[in-house]
């Protein structure tokens, strides 16, 4: 492992995995390794962001990502503010650009944004003077999720190059799938997308991944089976007929997992739908990395905050 160096990250924002080089990604993962150690100490505080202000601006409900960023910011010494959009001026009709200008006037250092529209975080980043981190924009990207998934895989498997990773479920609407696809292929993994045709985006077969329409073929000999969350509102006949039919053909249970490699590991970005995309026996089993992913989430977000802090204005 190369010596982690936060100054090697030269971007002002983290808007997506797209645009990052392999060395930049690997450097972030190395930085995150160090952050894991910090989080496992009794004294979890660093001073990298002392005096800095971090705003969590979530236009979409989130528990783990928002908490993860909050903890990461606090462990690095920042003042963290969570904007509750549900009760804010946004509900009174303020546009995204106006919200950005308002927040910018409060002189934050970093804004973490989740928005239900693809491209919204990029738009906001153009209107502020501080750094912006994309915590998920529509069906586009969720870069810190892909980084934490990569870190989890790399720590368990020792590498990413050459692994077969099957990403299964609602690929069409998943920003996690898109960010992971870009990151994992950049690091030399073979990526498969596994879904019914109604949940595969158009042109997916030209994006450098293998496309499978049955779980059996999709996870065959896979090293990693990454399940995606299926939103309830997509299950009642709109994209797939029903929960039970989806589980019958695309749910991951112990029997189906036998098609993957004997040492295959199971991941899920959470929150899981038990009995819809994943069976409890697998989700809670020895091969599940679901809770480990959450721990890696804090570490990766600390690494990203630290890397971005090198280039903050007046820094």
């Amino acid at each position, binding site marked *: 492992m190369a010596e982690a160096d936060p100054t090697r990250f030269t971007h002002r924002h983290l808007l997506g995995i797209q645009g990052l080089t392999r060395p930049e990604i690997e450097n972030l993962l190395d930085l995150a390794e160090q952050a894991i150690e910090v989080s496992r100490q009794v004294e979890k505080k660093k001073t990298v962001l002392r005096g800095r202000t971090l705003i969590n601006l979530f236009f979409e409900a989130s528990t783990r990502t928002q908490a993860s960023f909050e903890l990461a910011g606090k462990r690095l010494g920042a003042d963290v503010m969570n904007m509750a959009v549900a009760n804010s001026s946004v509900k009174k009709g303020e546009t995204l650009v106006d919200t950005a200008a308002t927040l910018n006037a409060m002189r934050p250092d970093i804004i973490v944004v989740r928005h239900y529209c693809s491209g919204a975080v990029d738009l906001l980043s153009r209107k502020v003077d501080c750094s912006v981190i994309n915590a998920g924009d529509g069906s586009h990207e969720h870069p810190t999720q892909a980084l934490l998934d990569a870190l989890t895989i790399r720590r368990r498997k020792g590498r990413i190059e050459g692994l077969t990773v099957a990403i299964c479920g609602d690929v069409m609407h998943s920003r996690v799938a898109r960010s992971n696809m870009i990151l994992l292929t950049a690091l030399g993994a073979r990526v498969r997308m596994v879904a*019914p*045709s*109604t949940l595969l985006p158009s042109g997916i077969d030209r994006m450098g991944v293998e496309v499978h*329409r*049955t779980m059996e073929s999709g996870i065959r000999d896979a090293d990693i089976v990454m399940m995606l969350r299926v939103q309830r509102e997509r299950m*009642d*006949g*709109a*994209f*797939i*007929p*029903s929960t*039970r*039919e989806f589980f*019958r*053909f695309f749910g991951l249970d112990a029997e189906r997992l036998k098609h993957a490699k004997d040492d295959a590991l199971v991941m899920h970005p959470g929150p899981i739908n038990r009995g819809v995309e994943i069976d409890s026996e697998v989700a809670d089993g020895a091969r599940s990395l679901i809770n480990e992913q959450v721990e890696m989430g804090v570490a990766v977000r600390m690494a990203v905050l630290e890397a971005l802090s090198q280039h903050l204005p007046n820094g």
Partner: protein
Amino acid sequence: MNNPSRPIALINARLIDPVAGTETRGGVLVENGEIRGVGAAITRASVSADAQIVDCGGDIVCPGLVDMRVFVGEPGAEYRETIATASRAAASGGVTTIVATPDTNPPMDDPAVVDFLLRRARDTARVRVLPSAAMTKGLKGEELAEIGLLQEAGAVAFTDGAHSIQNSKVMRRVLTYARDFDALVMHYAEDRNLASSGVMNEGEFASRLGLGGVPPEAESIIIDRDLRLAALTRGRYHAALVSNVQSLESIQRAKQNGLRVTCGVSINHLTLNENDIGDYRTFLKLSPPLRQEDERQKLVEALASGLIDVIVSDHNPQDVETKRLPFAEAEDGAIGLETMLSAGLRLVRAGTITLPRLLASLSSRPAEILGLPQGRLAPGAPADLIRFDPDEPYVVDRQKLHSRSKNTPFDEARMEGVVKLTMVAGRIVHE
């Protein structure tokens, strides 16, 4: 009924092989529900002494008919038809496989209903009854039905029956989702708004009768849309009932472009036209409506050329009370299982189609589209066979038909062609 474990030989027959399109003299040997041998070598002398011999006396022997569109009434409309009565009518009309439509009550959109139908068929049917299941929940054209689970339960195809999906996005999703299961989508094409005020074919005759018309475009606009979606999704699409030239032209183009597209026509549209409605005869009120004579002739030509793949009875039994109403208020539909073969033979007699081609569109071609082993006159094929005399005349008497409902458009018609024996899986079910 015969003992199906005893070999049976149908000898001295005109054998018509619809797959090869050939006619030969000879016999068929049946054992254990399968065809063992076919051809001139099967004679009284050649088969073993314990075999039952049926001397066909020069009658035609060919595979039993496969009817892709039959309303069997169960569950929920037993006053119109039951599986028992429909299958008796089928056996007497030479139909050995029925595909039941899903517009039942409850509709066939749940695996438990498919299972119910299969059990009822096992217990009460003389012929094979296979379910087609709903492609949208409740046949409402809004949400995908459980195509995977329904197929596992035994559905052989997917259709919303007499309901047509209006929402193009839903139709796209159905075709896309069904493709993953290689499931056949059979769609009845009708633009509901365009057809809404009509009760018969639009044109001079409707205007003279003072009835609202349904233009051919009500069908062809949806067919055009569906074919574009079939191209987009690469799904397997079957236009359940075509009735006009516009639809045929579109389907021809789609076939030329290599799409996995097929189509069917009802026996009524091949043999009747709008003038047969005459004095407001509600038994001829159909959907799609009967068209003009020149359209009918084009349909027959398309059948002869193979552009139209299959003929269906579109058997739709209606209670007398729903037909004994003013034309505009009467229900659509006609029964047809028992008269389909002899009505089809009218086309052969008129010289517009050959007998093997007619029989192919009634047996081997539908079986092929449905992925069934039936419809073949070859060793190893299921012994679903019929014997009929194509020239024996009779007059249709609706009271003598086996269907529970009597709404035949051919009542009192002079027909030729009588089925003398129907065999399903080696068992004689009608003689």
